[in-house]
């Protein structure tokens, strides 16, 4: 209510002055009187503190010695059991901890009990005086004036141009961070394709053995890689795109959209294992609810509905791999995925 006195037009934009807050305040009584410590009054107490500090430093010495025991006696090169390793690690840690805490606590105890504990007062000074600031501005003005940059716009403008351009090569230098040597178009094309192709067998991860349709019983889940993955160039890159989860459910319970009727083999379906959110492997399959869950951000996909997103942050369904059986009864891909696998990106479309 008393605030309105600040509101005059003359004072607009200015800040409250220190003195108008200071009125009607309690006066500063100054620092409270100093209370001497036990050690200040009693020399025996001081002596006791001295012994305590020395004891703490001795503990530190013992800690360091203990470290050497831990290093040479408890530790050895070669195979150690976990129990031995745990004991050695704990001993190294405790040795170091006592060595360090002994010094630290000792010094602080010394400072607290034996060094003077009178609080001192130091005055603050202005960071820099008005005059210094004015002098500095004058110097800078003089320097600018002597360069003549204001009078010679041709020099100034070409310099600005040169400086603006000069860093650009440094940015372009990083073009070859991409070590593939391919054009952007080729790379984006490559992202759309995986090792899956017509007739490529589905094999177990990591053994690489092919899977028969009859092996896949209701409720089971196979982690699948394409046949020949281990011989692929850039094996991990290919694996990062091609991993597939193979499951079997009752075909009656599946809602199959048009065009995908023959993508499964008697209820055996294959879906990309790479989450369409940010790419974690979605491998948590619940056989009764038919849910697939990503352990990283909990996107949940419904296998009965062609892996549509039913919960969590993922933005689109998991790509399905069309499969069939070959003449030997092994599961094979009909083709590559019909859309890019993994997280969405600008060029995905």
């Amino acid at each position, binding site marked *: 209510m008393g605030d309105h006195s600040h509101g005059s037009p003359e004072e607009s934009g200015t800040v409250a002055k220190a003195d108008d807050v200071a009125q009607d305040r309690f006066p500063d009584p100054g620092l409270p009187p100093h209370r001497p*410590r036990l050690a200040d009054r009693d020399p025996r107490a001081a002596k006791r503190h001295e012994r305590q500090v020395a004891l703490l430093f001795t503990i530190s010495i013992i800690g360091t010695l203990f470290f050497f025991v831990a290093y040479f006696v408890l530790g050895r090169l070669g195979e150690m059991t*976990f129990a031995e390793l*745990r004991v050695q690690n704990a001993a190294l840690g405790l040795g170091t901890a006592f060595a360090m805490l002994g010094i630290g606590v000792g010094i*602080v105890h010394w400072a607290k009990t034996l060094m003077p*504990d009178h609080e001192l007062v130091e005055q603050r000074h202005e960071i820099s005086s008005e005059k210094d600031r004015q002098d500095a501005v004058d110097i800078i003005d003089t320097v600018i004036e002597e360069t003549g940059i204001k009078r010679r716009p041709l020099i100034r403008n070409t310099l600005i141009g040169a400086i603006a351009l000069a860093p650009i090569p440094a940015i372009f230098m990083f073009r070859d961070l991409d070590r593939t040597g391919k054009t952007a178009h080729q790379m984006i094309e490559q992202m759309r394709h995986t090792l899956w192709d017509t007739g490529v067998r589905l094999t177990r991860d990591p053994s690489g053995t092919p899977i028969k349709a009859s092996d896949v019983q209701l409720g*089971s*889940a196979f982690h699948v890689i394409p046949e020949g993955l281990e011989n692929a160039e850039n094996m991990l890159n290919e694996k990062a795109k091609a991993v597939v989860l193979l499951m079997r459910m009752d075909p009656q319970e599946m809602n199959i959209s048009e065009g995908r009727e023959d993508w499964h083999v008697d209820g055996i379906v294959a879906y990309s294992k790479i989450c369409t959110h940010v790419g974690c492997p979605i491998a*948590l399959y619940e056989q009764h609810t038919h849910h697939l869950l990503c352990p990283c951000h909990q996107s949940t996909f419904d296998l009965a509905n062609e892996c549509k997103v039913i919960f969590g942050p993922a933005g689109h369904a998991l790509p399905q791999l069309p499969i069939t059986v070959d003449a030997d009864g092994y599961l094979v891909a009909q083709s590559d995925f019909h859309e890019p696998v993994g997280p969405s990106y600008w060029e995905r479309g």
Partner: protein
Amino acid sequence: MKALSKKRRHPLAAVALLLFGLLVTGSLYTAAGSISEAKAADTTSASVTDVEEGQKLFVANCATCHGMSAEGTADGPSLIGVGAAAVDFQVGTGRMPMQMQGPQAQAKPVQFDDEQISQLSAYVASLGAGPAIPGEDVLDTTQGDAAQGGTIFRVNCAMCHNAAAGGGALTRGKFAPTLAGVSEKHIYEAMATGPQNMPVFNDSNITPDDKRDVITFLKTIEANGSAGGAALGNLGPVAEGLFVWTAGLGIIIAFTIWLTSRPS
């Protein structure tokens, strides 16, 4: 090889292949069947009486949900064809009989003694062919390969059970339990039967030898414990962060208060 690939195109090749395939699957099936029969025989000594006893136990304890002849009801699935392993796992870990309906059956103190469990298993196994209780040879961790088992575990199990087998969350209140302290037999049976929402890992997906490797891996890391001190539940960065914010900063604040306090 040349000759073989030429003959591949022969009109009778498909028939021959079909016959060969049938022969192989047939003989494998009989072999597998006789193995499981043999196992059933040596885990259950007096088969006929066991089945009868098991049926009595079943009717008294399980039929409310699973139906009088295990055909299933709205409250519980059919048990025909789930095999002895499923019963041994579910009853042997105390998951069955369930205390109440819920997102998933929880492990709790076992309700039956070993003999009763084997009688129940024998009864359910008699209803239809299914995975049998594993024999000692596939549970013997001295013969397993922990490194191989670890690789299989990471691909097939770690996403739900956590890489250090500490357990993890599933959707809508379900969860994958920790595997620490679970017996070799129950781990094997869980893989073979796929209890609750866990997928089934049948012998063609993870072979009995591979299952033994997985068990060996789990028992190895369980026996090893943690190398660097307390494992903080093997829960990863969340537990570590929580520890730093509570214990770590707590100790530091205690020291700062001592350091800036005035002694008497």
